[in-house]
């Protein structure tokens, strides 16, 4: 197993609040890591630091052996580190297909081509179409993304993240706002993408069914740092975790 990402001693303060307070994290190629924790544990901030949306006050991030701590987001994407967002951020006025074409063309360095029509990029279009198929959005290809139903936008958001062909993809609550049926579908989709495209995922998630069904390693955060980590079964049985997070302390006889 090769190490993809290493974060050491990450800290990020917002005023008096240390949202991330000495986070150490390591992700290996081929894993699916779930990042869980109570509200305010610093999961989303951690993702923002890893993806370059925020810069840390302290600490270092290494991705595939390279220090990326201060790189802007677009430079991280070109090195193979992409993400999705909790609050939906598709490109609302672009069609679903164009939503996927943007990361595909950006990846190919074609986004600076000002003279050839987008149509001329046949391979990019085919790739977008095939990804639309994987996402179950082939019928929606020509519709403005902002007009799609919530569940479709969720899948499209995931598609945008993987269209960059990342080595590591960070997902921030990919199933939020979905019904249980849609959640199951999304889980399958992530698993399929992980298998077929060789993407390593780090998923921030609240839904424990999603977490335990998807991840082969669970990292529990609390107060900005790692509380526990291990295989899903160990975490499920970890007493400290149950008390701080899984909320089952009443059922546990002391």
């Amino acid at each position, binding site marked *: 197993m090769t190490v993809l990402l290493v974060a050491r001693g990450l800290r990020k303060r917002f005023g008096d609040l240390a949202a991330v307070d000495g986070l150490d994290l390591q992700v290996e190629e081929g894993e699916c890591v779930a990042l869980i924790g109570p509200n305010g544990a610093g999961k989303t901030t951690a993702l923002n630091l890893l993806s370059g949306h925020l810069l840390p006050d302290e600490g270092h991030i290494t991705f595939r052996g390279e220090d990326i701590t201060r790189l802007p987001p677009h430079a991280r994407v070109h090195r193979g580190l*992409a993400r999705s967002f909790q609050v939906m951020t598709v490109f609302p006025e672009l069609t679903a297909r*164009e939503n996927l074409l943007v990361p595909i*063309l950006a990846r190919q360095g074609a986004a600076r*081509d*000002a003279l050839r029509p*987008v149509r001329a990029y046949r391979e990019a279009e085919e790739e977008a179409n095939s990804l639309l198929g994987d996402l179950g959005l082939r019928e929606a290809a020509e519709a403005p993304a902002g007009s799609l139903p919530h569940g479709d936008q969720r899948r499209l958001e995931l598609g*945008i993240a993987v269209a960059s062909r990342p080595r590591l993809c960070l997902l921030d609550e990919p199933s939020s706002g979905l019904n249980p049926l849609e959640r199951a579908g999304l889980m399958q989709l992530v698993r399929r993408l992980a298998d077929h495209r060789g993407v390593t995922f780090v998923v921030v998630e609240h839904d424990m069914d999603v977490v335990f069904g998807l991840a082969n390693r669970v990292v529990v955060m609390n107060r900005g740092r790692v509380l526990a980590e291990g295989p899903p079964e160990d975490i499920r049985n970890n007493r400290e975790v149950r008390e701080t997070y899984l909320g089952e302390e009443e059922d546990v006889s002391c």
Partner: protein
Amino acid sequence: MNDLARRWAAAGLLLALVLLPAVASRYVTYLVIHILLLALNAVGFNLLFGQTGLLSFGQAGFYAVGAYTCARILLAWPSLLPGVLGGTAAAAVAALLLGSLSVRHTRIYFAMLTLAFGMMIFSLAWKWRAVTGGDDGLVGIPRAPLELFGLVVALPTVERYYYVVLVAAVLAVALMHRVVHSPLGLALRAVRDSEVRAEHVGLNVRRLRLVAFTVAGAYAGLAGSLLPPLENTVTPPIAHWTASAEPVLATLLGGIRHFAGPLVGAFVLVVAKDVIVRFTVHWSLVLGAVVVALVLGFRGGLAGALEALTLRGSRVRPVSAAAGEEAR
């Protein structure tokens, strides 16, 4: 409107423009030159506004940089091409410099910065007497001949000069059509739709904004460069911020989501102004009311309304989808 109909419309318009000086009066030809200049400025502006989502109130500044540079070149070296190309290049450089300071901001902050930079250019035009002639402006600018590949074409009449402007406008609009439909155009619309998402799919948002700003500045500069040979003078009011409102109004009027929007808007704005001026000294009041009515009445702009009209009866897709298609 399908592709074929759109092509026919463009061809018909082009034919009418080519035949215009033969059938219309000199004044109408002169007026259409002004429509073309505003159209050029507005088409460039809409790359910034409609495509990239940045509202600039400083386009008159770049228009003026183009006009003054071209005027100075023509006064020293009476040859049209160096004047127009030099003016366009100077405006592009000015836009690149001021843009690099502006594009880290968006929305109202960006608009205010461009307004401020535009006013700085205006005060330069007003005060820098040695270069700009101050409030007198520059006078006696020749309508220099067009020298191309050893061929010298004199431009003694407005009609002849009209064809120079028409060729420049057609080439520039065709180029913009390509840019809008290219991956770069798509990337700009992605930046407009969601800046954060665009960064996280690997787009350098700031650089893309700067590209759009520079291209818009170059288009304003090209329009400005074509003015002094027509009028033979350049004066500071062309740099005033109220002049910056013209491409904004033309684009809003025509429709920001339509490629043809700025063209339609430029036509309507120049013609409406010309007509209204004949009837009242309070023309700007009436023009303002007309613009407000049109913008409120046709939310998608006049180009959108025209399209909806021609689509009636032969509609193949919903208008919103067609409008989305048109915009890209």
